[in-house]
């Protein structure tokens, strides 16, 4: 089983980190993973885009041409929407993207990632510091929820992911990020529970 | 007068650190003198079997033919980098090079200055004869104003070429080196046509010894030997000694520019 993801946004949104975390989450789940950061002319103008491929088999090409999941952290990220596989999922940061262009053959999940992250001020390691920076972790939680993961089961794995990446001084941010993942997970799970009519998202099969 | 070639070959007897192979150095050239001084110093230090010579490009390109030690050939100007690469992994070895003015002060100036600035524990002997000898007498970075060379056929014009470059002062301007010295190596004429003053060779012998000692103490050592090139200067050997004393000695004054470990004080 193979999952292909494009994560896009602009510099400063933690797009590369989100893609790294997502890839590493798959790795600790026993999959082969490939992560490709932005390269070449696309890196100009602060646009950031990366590919994540996770597969039970060795990965042929790390390049994502038709993703199962597009994580759009800002409006320009929707440029990649035409690439999304039919039946795929568009996960949008609705704090910045209010209007999603129509594509009837994909599932759209809107998560106000910046707003949810900003509400986590009590978890900030620096009192009073804005926590909206954790929006990328909120989106990671949303991805887990879309895949119908079980938060209680994944929490330890997610903590392991953050311990791998957030070392030394950054370690103080682990509790905030775990909380942000949980927040995104719970928000998205509620969304899915409320949209009773929608069919099971395909990522339940592909991402997990 | 003992010629450099004779000094190297026979007059003072053979040395185990010399191969005994006749050199290609021209009559009156100080390269032969320096080769002998280096061999003597290595024997005094008992260092022959832990020494690596890095041959440069220029008249010293065949130094490994005459010095009976291990040797590596460096590309033109890169000897200080090659030496650093040896010394970084084999600090137990005594590593040195004989570079010319073109090698060290022109094409290899970056390698010289950065090795010096990092204080690499290596020893560099620069033979400054103010001309490109090996390639047939072209202008060197140290060629004095007005000197006729094959690439300055009307004399070196400083407006076009900039002034002669002072390698010792450049090296001494850096914090890294532990020992920087300039020696006037040629014999100098005296009032009597029968006698010549060979003080330069004696000072040179001490400087060579000190430069190796400084390396053994972990410091970067650089000795510039102001020398002659009668063949490419188009002068007789005797005239070249006079010219060196008159023109090069004031342009490149002998002196001790750095002695961090105080090796000269003892």
């Amino acid at each position, binding site marked *: 089983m193979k999952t292909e993801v494009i994560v896009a946004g602009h510099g400063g949104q933690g797009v590369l980190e989100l893609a790294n975390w997502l*890839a590493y989450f798959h790795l600790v789940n026993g999959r*082969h993973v490939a992560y490709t950061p932005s390269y070449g002319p696309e890196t100009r103008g602060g646009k950031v885009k990366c590919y994540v491929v996770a597969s039970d088999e060795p990965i042929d090409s790390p390049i994502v041409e038709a993703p199962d999941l597009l994580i759009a952290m800002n409006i320009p990220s929707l440029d990649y929407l035409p690439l999304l596989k039919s039946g795929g999922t568009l996960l949008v940061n609705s704090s910045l993207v209010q209007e999603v262009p129509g594509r009837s053959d994909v599932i759209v999940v809107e998560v106000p990632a910046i707003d949810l992250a900003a509400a986590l001020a009590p978890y900030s390691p620096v009192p009073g510091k804005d926590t909206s920076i954790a929006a990328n972790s909120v989106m990671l939680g949303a991805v887990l929820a879309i895949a119908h993961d079980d938060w209680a089961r994944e929490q330890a794995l997610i903590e392991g992911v953050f311990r791998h990446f957030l070392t030394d001084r950054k370690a103080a941010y682990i509790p905030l990020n775990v909380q942000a993942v949980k927040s995104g997970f719970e928000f998205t799970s509620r969304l899915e529970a409320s949209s009773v009519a929608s069919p099971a998202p395909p990522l339940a099969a592909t991402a997990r | 007068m003992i010629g450099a070639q004779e000094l190297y070959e026979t007059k003072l007897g053979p040395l185990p650190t010399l191969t005994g192979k006749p050199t290609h150095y021209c009559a009156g050239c100080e390269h032969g003198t320096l080769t002998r001084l280096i061999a003597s110093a290595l024997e005094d230090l008992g260092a022959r079997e832990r020494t690596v010579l890095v041959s440069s490009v220029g008249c010293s390109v065949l130094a490994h033919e005459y010095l009976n030690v291990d040797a590596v050939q460096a590309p033109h100007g890169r000897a200080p980098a090659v030496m*650093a*690469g040896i010394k970084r*992994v*084999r600090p137990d070895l005594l590593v040195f090079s004989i570079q010319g003015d073109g090698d060290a002060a022109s094409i290899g100036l970056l390698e010289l200055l950065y090795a010096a600035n990092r204080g690499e524990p290596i020893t560099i002997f620069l033979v400054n004869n103010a001309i490109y000898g090996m390639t047939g007498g072209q202008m060197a970075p140290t060629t004095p104003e007005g000197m006729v060379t094959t690439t300055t056929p009307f004399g070196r014009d400083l407006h076009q070429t900039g002034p002669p470059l002072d390698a010792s002062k450049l090296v001494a301007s850096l914090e890294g080196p532990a020992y920087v010295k300039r020696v006037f190596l040629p014999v100098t004429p005296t009032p009597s046509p029968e006698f010549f003053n060979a003080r330069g060779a004696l000072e040179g012998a001490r400087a060579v010894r000190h430069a190796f000692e400084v390396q053994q103490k972990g410091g970067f050592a650089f000795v510039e030997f102001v020398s002659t090139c009668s063949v490419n200067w188009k002068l007789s050997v005797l005239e070249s000694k006079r010219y060196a004393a008159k023109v090069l000695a004031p342009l490149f004054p002998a002196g001790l520019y750095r002695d961090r470990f105080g090796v000269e004080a003892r």
Partner: protein
Amino acid sequence: MNADRDFLKGNEALAYGALRTGLNAYYGYPITPSSEIPETLAAEFGRGTYPEFRAFVQAASELEAINMTIGTAATGAKAMTATSGPGFSLKQEGISYAAAMELPLLIVDVNRSGPGLGNLGPEQSDYFQATKGGGHGGYRNIVLAPDSVPEMALFPSLGFELAFRYRMPVILLADAFLGQLKEDLTFPEVPAREFDTSWAVTGARGDHRHVLSSLHLELPDQSRHVEHLRSKYEEIVGAEQRSEEIATADAEVVIVAYGICARLARAAVRSLRDRSVRVGLLRPITLAPFPQDRLNALIDGGVRNLLVVELNSGQMVEDVRLVAEGRARVESLERVGGLLPSSGEVEAAAEDLTSSGDLRSALEAMVQ
């Protein structure tokens, strides 16, 4: 699958692969997209994790870096330098001397777009420079081409083994994509290897001295030396060709691709085979020596269509044509400027070379 896997960029994996094979010294000048190599090594040098790693210097120039590498290699120690295109050009002087003095050293080129400054995107345009000598005078290097992060980690070990076995520079030719790509990997256990270093400068032993020189003033001496280098490379051509093949047994069309292009080609072959299109892949692992024996065998076995996919304006395709000698049709799909073809484009180009592709083209021509 091993649970204890790492997740590293290609450049980082290469650095650790070198350390795990006993790297003694690294000298380099920073250049994108290879800088993670010195950055990773600097950190490990500072930590002192690898006791054999005795020297790390950020050199003042590419020239200084390659010549420091030469100095360390001359002592018989394992020395490496890494760079990208513009720096690879500067290193050619030293590589020529190292080849002439028969010094074992590892040079990494993370190929970016060129000529000139170009850009930071992936290209394979240093293929000629790496495989045909590159510097002045006549010599060849062994050139290894990884196509994954695990191979970036593995090839320093292979590189040093070949470098010491044949006493010559080995070039590890990666591309900007592989340098930046992160994948899961498990570091292989590399057995400690002892190489013959009796030629190295360590100080003379009595009458026995070690002289490493590229200067042979007597004409017959230089002639003999160059002949020696040439016969050594011929031995390498006979013994060290390495390649990987996928689905070539019954292939009508064989794609020839290395590095990141081989990854695209893998995807294309899988997709075409799913549709029963008989396409295979020959992936050169040694670009020099070029895997001519396997390519020959495929052509002898009936393959009549070859598709070269590479990120340059046609370089490896020349070697493929040299081997094919007109016995097979050789087409190429090229991208430059840091761009990559899509796997769909690779698929289409390969399918066009099949008999059904030919038939379709003919029908389209008739319709028009």
